[in-house]
């Protein structure tokens, strides 16, 4: 069956450290993968998109990798800050559908302590 898995347990790290979140998928062949941030009571906010032919993408303190062999994406936040505390969702397209029907993971909650 098709699955997108993100660690359901919250990730607790100390301010200044690098946070690494994992997104694994099964039985999908996505053309691209997106990462979103969701704060309590708010809708998700787009952060980064990485295509299947890209190994790595960076934006400021954020870095995303995409390994289509391992069927995995890693999301890194360097020099983390308490303001980075939120739930992070990965989403991938179902491929060959002609439109962006995204499938979302359940998200991983990140808590950055001062």
């Amino acid at each position: 069956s098709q699955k997108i898995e993100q660690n359901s347990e919250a990730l607790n790290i100390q301010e200044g450290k690098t946070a690494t979140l994992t997104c694994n998928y099964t039985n999908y062949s996505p053309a691209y993968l997106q990462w979103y941030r969701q704060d309590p009571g708010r809708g998700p906010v787009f952060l980064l998109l990485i295509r299947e032919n890209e190994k790595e993408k960076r934006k400021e303190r954020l870095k995303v990798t995409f390994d289509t062999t391992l069927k995995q994406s890693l999301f890194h936040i360097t020099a983390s800050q308490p303001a980075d505390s939120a739930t992070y969702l990965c989403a991938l397209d179902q491929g060959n559908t002609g439109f962006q029907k995204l499938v979302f993971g359940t998200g991983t909650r990140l808590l950055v302590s001062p």
Partner: protein
Amino acid sequence: GAGVSQSPSNKVTEKGKDVELRCDPISGHTALYWYRQRLGQGLEFLIYFQGNSAPDKSGLPSDRFSAERTGESVSTLTIQRTQQEDSAVYLCASSLEGLASLQYFGAGTRLSVL
């Protein structure tokens, strides 16, 4: 408007009543999506509108759910004869036409069915 607007922000209803949720997408965005997010869960795709094409209703969970969109503007999601399992946050998103466009989300409508 500046972002995707959803109303109401909260809706409490009694089991068996009908509810109507509204979404105002970003001006100029041709694609519009509805998702459902149950507590602690990921986003569940419901329906997608793209321009004048027939909507993709493949995610609607039952015939009690329906949605309409007027041109490339407002959309309404209607749930008839609500059930307790319909309780969730209903999120709307819009995007520009084209592949790999990122989605902009509203804050959602929190529906509670008593």
